[in-house]
């Protein structure tokens, strides 16, 4: 039995046509199912667990990257097959998973090509796409073997599925990440100086693939993971291997 979790933004009129087309296609394939609309403060884990008890075998997330991260960061502990129907403009994860945006995603879903995905874990929470720590005075310890530090503040981004684009002055740099290679990738950018109008000038980033990392600081620092922010003094980031079973496309990047 299929259950579809629709994000709140899909209520907008501009998405009516595409949602209707997708629902028609799903009905034609014989994989239409129950539709549940997510609200801002909905607990996705509780909903998924309830539906599993009622006999759901596949839970399909309908939305964008934010919806994907919001649902899976909480529902990663649930033992069920997940699917994804990307709708809207902010959909970079779909590209990594090989799922086309729009109605064609229904074809991918019907093929049920299953893969178990690695996800990141920190402080009792999972993150699927990436974790971001804005410039702070942090020390990073990798795999209990070596420590990395800088003279001033450092920005840290840990990527799992979603690549990050560094916006430096004049040019946009994209670093290639390797999803599902058994390691998470950490990008560290120290601040070299504060330029005109207090604009931060960053140095060239360092790249460290790792399985386990501890980030600590003397003062609390902001941590943002899959859209959710928190303040911490010390966090442990680990890779959870093959945690989520997902329907993916043929054109996936791993």
């Amino acid at each position, binding site marked *: 039995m299929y259950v579809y979790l629709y994000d709140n933004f899909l209520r907008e009129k501009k998405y009516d046509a595409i949602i209707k087309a997708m629902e028609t296609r799903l009905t034609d394939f014989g994989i239409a199912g129950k539709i549940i609309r997510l609200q801002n403060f909905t607990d996705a884990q509780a909903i998924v667990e309830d539906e599993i008890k009622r006999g759901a075998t596949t839970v399909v997330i309908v939305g964008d990257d934010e919806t994907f991260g919001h649902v899976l960061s909480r529902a990663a502990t649930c033992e069920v097959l997940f699917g994804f129907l990307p709708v809207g403009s902010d959909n970079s994860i779909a590209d990594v998973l090989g799922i086309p945006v729009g109605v064609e995603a229904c074809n991918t879903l019907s093929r049920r090509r299953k893969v178990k995905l690695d996800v990141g874990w920190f402080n009792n929470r999972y993150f699927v796409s990436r974790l971001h720590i804005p410039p702070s005075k942090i020390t990073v310890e990798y795999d209990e073997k070596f*420590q990395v530090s*800088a003279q001033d503040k450092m920005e840290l981004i840990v990527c799992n599925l979603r690549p990050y684009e560094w916006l430096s002055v004049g040019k946009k740099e994209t670093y290639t990440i390797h999803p599902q290679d058994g*390691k998470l990738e950490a990008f560290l950018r120290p601040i070299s100086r504060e330029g005109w109008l207090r604009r931060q000038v960053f140095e060239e980033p*360092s790249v460290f*693939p790792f399985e386990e990392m501890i980030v600590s600081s003397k003062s609390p620092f902001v941590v943002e993971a899959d859209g959710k922010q928190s303040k911490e003094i010390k966090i442990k980031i680990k890779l959870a291997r093959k945690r989520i079973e997902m329907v993916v496309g043929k054109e996936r990047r*791993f």
Partner: protein
Amino acid sequence: MFKTYPQQAVDVERVRVVSDDVDTVVGPSVKVEGDFASEGNIVVKGTVTGSVKTSKMLTVENGAKIFANVRAENAVVSGAIKGNVKVVERLELTETAQISGDIDCKILSVAPGALILGKVVMKGISLPDDSERSEKKKLFGKIKSEDADELTAE
């Protein structure tokens, strides 16, 4: 009208992308302390203290400093290393390289301007050593005296 696809889930076994392909990069003002090891290529632009180990390529850029023993499959050094360097295959020192420590490698390439302070050990050398030569001299001397004895006897 619409193609029907089999409802049975298809398990796709994919070969994992080997983590050997991922480069580890130590940025210019970053300091690494401890046993720094990687299964893939390492590029050092900053400072590393402790030990550095990789089973692939190590690149030490100009301005980088390593205060550690280094072990790699291949290496290209343009910065400074204070420690022993053990490279399985090829070690290349560019004109800005400075190594203060022993070097152990199979192939060594040193550009003009590179500085080395230490012992260089390379396997595969086939020159005989002093003890072998003195043994050969003694044997040659013995053969000569035996010939002389035969001549006098005749």
